[in-house]
């Protein structure tokens, strides 16, 4: 690994805290295509870690492995001290309430209104929100993304940016401690993308969440990240702050930044 901040040095920064997410030696193949070849990651409380990588490098596969939407072939994935691959379904569902997931295309349920979309995660986890009014939770979540007026609209009536904001409200409604963002700004114009970035930062400030963000958007990476990991050839090729990596002299890192910026 070509660490811009050496791993040992980074660990000393967090020596008093336990990682919320720990990924070690994760491997995943689809047929003969080896996507992940021993990926390692530690995610500490209140951190915003951005994973950068080319299309098809396995970024989305990696975060789907974190919530077991995809099973890993080898390695360990530990979230909040629990080994994800070994969890029974009920325990997995329980730990999934601690992990919010914002999907790339928003993934709002087409046949449900905005209100029903937000109610959906609550129906299985009423115990988690004990004593709190369901409607109040929905309205508050929508208020936090500035869309309380859209509560009775169908997803088809929303613009791309509004859909992403509703999806964000649905992600935070169970007040997760970790949020996984899969390309949160993809397909959005620069102004809307910036609004989403600011919303992500606001949510992190208000709810003290920890975030793992997959993105192609260098502005998003620069503004949001405390730490950036470059996923290349199935491993975490380089790691460090955005500034450190953007000034790296490593030929592959340099080429990566050059290629992404030229787009």
């Amino acid at each position, binding site marked *: 690994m070509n660490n811009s901040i050496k791993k040992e040095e980074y660990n000393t920064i967090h020596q008093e805290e336990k990682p919320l997410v720990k990924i070690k030696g994760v491997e995943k193949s689809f047929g003969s295509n080896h996507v992940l070849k021993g990926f390692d990651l530690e995610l500490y409380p209140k951190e915003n870690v951005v994973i950068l990588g080319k299309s098809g490098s396995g970024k989305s596969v990696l975060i*789907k492995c974190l*919530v077991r*939407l995809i099973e890993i072939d080898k390695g360990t994935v530990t979230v909040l001290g629990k080994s994800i691959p070994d969890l029974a*379904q009920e325990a997995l*569902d*329980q730990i*999934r*309430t601690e*992990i919010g*997931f914002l*999907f*790339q*295309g928003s*993934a*709002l*349920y*087409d*046949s449900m209104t905005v209100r029903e979309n937000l109610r*959906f*995660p609550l*129906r*299985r*986890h009423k115990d988690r929100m004990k004593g709190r009014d369901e409607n109040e939770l929905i309205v508050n979540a929508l208020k936090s993304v500035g869309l309380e007026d859209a509560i009775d609209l169908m997803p088809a009536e929303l613009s791309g940016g509004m859909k992403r904001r509703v999806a964000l409200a*649905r992600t935070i409604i169970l007040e997760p401690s970790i949020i996984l963002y899969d390309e949160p700004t993809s397909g959005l114009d620069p102004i809307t993308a910036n609004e989403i970035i600011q919303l992500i930062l606001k949510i992190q400030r208000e709810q003290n969440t920890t975030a793992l963000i997959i993105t192609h958007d260098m502005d998003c990476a620069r503004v949001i990240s405390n730490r950036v990991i470059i996923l290349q050839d199935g491993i975490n090729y380089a790691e460090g702050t955005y500034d450190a990596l953007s000034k790296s002299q490593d030929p592959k890192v340099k080429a990566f930044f050059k290629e992404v910026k030229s787009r």
Partner: protein
Amino acid sequence: MHPISKNIVNFLDTVGSLSFFVGRFFKEGFKFPFEMKELIRQCYLIGYNSLLLVMTTGFIMGLVLTIQVRPTMIEFGAVSYMPAMIGISVIREIGPVVTALICAGKIGSGIGAELGSMKVTEQIDAMEVSGTNPFKFLVVTRVWATTLMLPLLVFVADAVGLFGSFLVEHVKGDVSFTLYFNEVFDSLVYGDLIPATIKSFFFGFAIGIVGCYKGYNSGKGTAGVGLAANSAVVIASLLLFVIDFLAVLMADIFFEI
């Protein structure tokens, strides 16, 4: 691999994974908690929304069958057997098969396309990470709904089909409503009704499970959604005839029809 061998392998692969899918349905379809609200919603969407189409088809089926058969029956001096003949053929075979084929086209393709697009747009994944079992919420409810609704739709199609047939008989032969339906019911025995009803449940199950299987396992982006809808109709229609053949065979053994 030779193209023929590849096709055989693909066919066996589909049969295998469909069998697993059916197995998963039986494993999860009887387990608490049931998604009752969604099941009722699906029964409404599948049953009520198909009613007009099924009634129209059934009515035309009864009319056409009677108009076409009547001259031959007159030729043989057997026109008085018309209600019995139409009654038996509609209840035993034409009603269930035509209704099932119509539903395979309307409901099967709808389920295939809906679940396919949910898969492609990651809505199924979103459901899973929110702690809801998507198989139970999407597949189990739809398969139960088609299984329960199809016999009711067949019943409606049979009734409307017989009414259509009565109209022709009334206009052309001046047969009264009471006489016509007395003749129909006198000619029917349990051996006509029971196998037809049982096979309607199987038809509904086949339409639901194939539609869900194709949608739930669709891939290749938006093109995959179209393919899922299309193949759901083709496979379900083919399965309906296989089930029909087996049902007739079983009815022949147990009811000596």
